[in-house]
């Protein structure tokens, strides 16, 4: 029993009725038959390259590093917001809403996977280095092996969850902004970004409608539901302006016909939000924007403390077992 002799931990311990450990040979492993093709990294989704077979040639006239960083910004938004929303799993007010939130998180996770894979394909030097032979695919390296200061998501995506009113207010703000960006991104000269945007528009139309309807329901519901919604919007509003601030990378890729300058969608997104507020009979919150640190915000890698804590939770197992396979 080498595992015991060398005092190494064994993870395959079963107990018989008397409580003694039962040793399994390799051939008795109930899971061995499930390894159809090959063992893959334990934390990924088992589809080696989400862009397999997709032409990832970087178009003329854009710096591949800038394209990579831009996709990382969009991919980090989707990843971090997806992670936040998925924290609702099993905690929503009822089963339907629980499933809706999980579905929204899943759509965003899929978008993030494609975007981070695009980052890796555009500029491999942006992908964290791991020891040779590591089974971790590129987009997972980007998700699990970067530090908080290397994430470029907008800060709205990372704020800690509040009550259900806060969830729908946040999803409404995020998807209104993001849908306006993705609608323009559909005509990106980068065929991968364009394809991701075309799918994303379909998905996020559902997210925006879902959140908008709930904002209406809560605003026209009881005193309590309305008060909670107003309080949630008030708390989130300082993060609205940041969504439309143009980072130099965004300006550059927009000029190259690859990306979208978020400042361009500010009016349109504001009008849509005002439509929801008008139908709900509530006013736009009056709160100033949350300052950055020496002018730097989410896109520059400067975040609130909440991101560091979320990443600790999200990344800890992958970092503990970087070679873990099943």
């Amino acid at each position, binding site marked *: 029993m080498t595992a015991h002799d060398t005092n190494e931990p064994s993870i395959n311990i079963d107990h018989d009725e008397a409580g003694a450990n039962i040793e399994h040979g390799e051939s008795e492993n109930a899971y061995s038959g499930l390894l159809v093709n090959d063992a893959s990294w334990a934390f990924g989704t088992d589809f080696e390259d989400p862009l397999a077979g997709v032409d990832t040639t970087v178009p003329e006239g854009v710096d591949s590093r800038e394209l990579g960083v831009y996709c990382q910004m969009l991919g980090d938004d989707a990843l971090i917001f997806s992670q936040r929303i998925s924290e609702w799993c099993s905690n929503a007010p009822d089963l339907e809403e629980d499933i809706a939130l999980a579905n929204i998180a899943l759509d965003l996770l899929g978008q993030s996977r*494609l975007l981070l894979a695009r980052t890796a394909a555009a500029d491999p030097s942006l992908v964290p280095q791991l020891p040779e032979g590591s089974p971790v695919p590129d987009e997972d390296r980007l998700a699990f092996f970067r530090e908080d200061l290397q994430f470029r998501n907008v800060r709205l995506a990372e704020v800690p969850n509040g009550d259900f009113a806060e969830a729908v207010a946040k999803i409404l703000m995020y998807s209104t902004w993001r849908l306006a960006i993705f609608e323009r991104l559909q005509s990106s000269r980068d065929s991968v970004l364009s394809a991701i945007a075309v799918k994303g528009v379909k998905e996020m139309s559902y997210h925006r409608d879902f959140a908008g309807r709930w904002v209406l329901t809560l605003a026209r519901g009881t005193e309590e539901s309305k008060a909670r919604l107003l309080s949630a919007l008030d708390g989130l509003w300082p993060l609205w302006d940041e969504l439309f601030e143009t980072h130099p990378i965004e300006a550059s890729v927009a000029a190259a016909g690859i990306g979208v300058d978020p400042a361009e969608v500010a009016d349109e997104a504001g009008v849509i939000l005002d*439509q929801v507020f008008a139908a709900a009979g509530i006013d736009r919150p009056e709160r100033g924007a949350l300052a950055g640190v020496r002018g730097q915000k989410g896109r520059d890698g400067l975040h609130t403390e909440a991101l560091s804590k979320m990443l600790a939770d999200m990344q800890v197992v992958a970092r503990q077992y970087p070679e873990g396979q099943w």
Partner: protein
Amino acid sequence: MTAALQTHESIIRDGRDDRDARSADAGSSPAEPLDRARAAAARVTDPEMPMLTLVDLGVLRDVAIEDGRVVTTITPTYSGCPAMATMRDDLQRELQDAGFEDAEVRVSLTPAWTSDWITEEGRKALKGAGISPPGQAPRHQGPVALTLMPTNRALTCTLCGSANVKLSSEFGPTACKAMYQCLDCLEPFQHVKEI
């Protein structure tokens, strides 16, 4: 699975040159390997809606033979569709059983999948399994309109046929479905969403 393999009446058809096909299966006529590969790929079903084949769902976009290797192309229904890996494995396994080792599965993101690609057969199969098939997908000219009222679909209950149904959630047990309930017979049922 060999019993299910299609065999052609006209086994001997010579004279046509098809290097790709011949290297995949040197023993038979040129077109046959591709037909067999297509037939094998067409047998693969959706892991979450097994009453539908990948063809019925409109997810299987292409089956070809390149340099002696079968190459199939699939497209995701939703960006985060967790069934993609299983679809790939199932395609490879089915093709392997049909004698095609090492089949490659490619992902195509363009054109984006739409529920309009679900075939007539597929719609019948969905109905037969108690799942309401999608209506026509929305076509966007210009910005996507905000819809603050519940989506109005003319649906009938998959159990009793009543049109007196109520949307309970736009998000169902899989990314592609909404949840309804019949107000007459009270049957809850799923509806494949239009995208």
